[in-house]
């Protein structure tokens, strides 16, 4: 599903954010990406979603060589990569339903289908009763779930989440990980960036660890008890 080969990312005036990173994710995997602050986790996700392009190396996502993807194909690539952001990135002056609808509207679906599928996504994250609310009226955990609903509404085969439990209390974190596990069960590939060590330890998934832009460990999934 995802393959990084000798990927280096250099931001001008800052140096290498990623150095010669190699890894691969098979379809249907659920993987944690961890490391200290500034290690390059977000950079990895941005490269996959084509928010940035690598300085060197090759990235393949769902069989596509991202370096060869012309700019006008980027939107179609992003429709197949659901992205959840730590800061939610919601439109504060639109309703929850409008926010979740956005990817479908952008993809040119008709209004009936948009509404039906957006409600289904909201139902999956348990927020259907808040569909007419504005995001600012919701708690941080609820806003995060709106972001998740928006990421999955287009039924992408790949879901990227950047610190999805960033500032949530443990109960809410569990709730969200539970949600991700359910998506994974229906075949969605997930890559979750987090520095919540406790969360990673308590879950059996494969874990990639970055340090100063290098991939320093790739721990295989533990057996479920």
């Amino acid at each position: 599903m995802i393959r990084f080969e000798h990927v280096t990312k250099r931001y001008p005036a800052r140096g290498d954010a990623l150095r010669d990173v190699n890894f691969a994710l098979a379809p249907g995997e659920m993987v944690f990406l961890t490391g200290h602050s500034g290690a390059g986790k977000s950079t990895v996700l941005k490269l996959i979603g084509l928010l940035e392009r690598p300085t060197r190396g090759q990235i393949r996502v769902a069989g596509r060589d991202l370096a060869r993807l012309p700019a006008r194909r980027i939107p179609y690539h992003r429709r197949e990569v659901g992205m959840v952001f730590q800061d939610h990135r919601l439109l504060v002056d639109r309703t929850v339903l409008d926010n979740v609808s956005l990817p479908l509207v952008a993809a040119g679906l008709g209004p009936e289908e948009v509404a039906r599928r957006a409600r289904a996504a909201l139902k999956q994250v348990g927020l259907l009763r808040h569909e007419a609310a504005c995001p600012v009226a919701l708690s941080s955990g609820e806003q995060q779930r709106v972001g998740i609903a928006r990421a999955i509404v287009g039924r992408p085969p790949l879901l990227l989440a950047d610190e999805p439990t960033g500032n949530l209390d443990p109960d809410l974190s569990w709730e969200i990980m539970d949600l991700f596990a359910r998506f994974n069960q229906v075949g969605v590939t997930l890559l979750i960036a987090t520095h919540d060590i406790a969360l990673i330890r308590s879950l059996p998934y494969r874990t990639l660890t970055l340090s100063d832009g290098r991939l320093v460990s790739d721990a295989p999934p533990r057996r479920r008890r």
Partner: protein
Amino acid sequence: MTGRRRRTARLHELPKVWLRHQAQNALAALGRLLRTPLPTLMTVAMLGVAIALPGGLFVVTINIKALAVGWERDAALSVFLVPSVVEADAERLAARLRERRDVAEVRVIGRDEALAEFRAYSGLEDVLAGLPGNPLPVVLSIVPPPAAGDAAALEGLAAALERLPETDLVRHDADWVHRFQALVELAQRGVSILASVLGLALLLIVGNTIRLEIENRRDEIRIQELVGATNAFIRRPFVYAGLWYGLLGGLVACLLVIVGLLLIQAPVSRVASLYQADFPLIGLSLPVLAAMLGIGTLLGYLGSWLAVSWHLRASKPE
């Protein structure tokens, strides 16, 4: 089988979906403009003036041109005969000339009549009184038929008259009309240049207005990009806003020019009546109206398109 049928049905509906989407966007864009009436009004007024100025001047030059065409039609050829030709010879010559196809009317202006006329117009009575005799020659005033109004036929006639042994000098009264027309032509060229400059200004006004709107909605655009919106999708509401600005600006321009014409109609008729000329102003003809609306809309579209494209180019990875 059913899947295939459903697919064709959907393909069939695509233009309808697309059209509905466009209409929704157009209305939504108009709604957004109307929600901030004052800034919108100011922009639209600015655009209206920028379009009305060259548009109005163009209408004025059209009117002046039409006026000159009338003058040219009425203009006669004056043939000054050599001094030895007396009035009786002139009458015979006139009769001969009346036979010609390219001559509609010949009037013989006798020496006395010419002198009286000259006296009345020039106000030089004292000087003329001091002269020993009448220095003026007999003049034939020749009016070509209205149909043969083109310049070449007139030239031919003038040349033929010039060759007559009785002729001293042929003066074409339309010469000054031609000079005047050349001036009007020049003015029209000037209006075109003004129109180009103001067109550019219009592009910049719309572009800048849309750029501010983009600044305001920067986050929204960013999020749309993140969830897979194409450039066309992101551009659409802004381009419609630009279209509306241009169209409304064109409408304001039409209003301004119509009001302007109405205001100068009365004084112009008064002046025209002084010269016993019937000179109705040619109002805004439909093509001119359509041009002002069309050019406004087109430039509004272009300005907004450029503004959004600029922004999108800057926000793309590499």
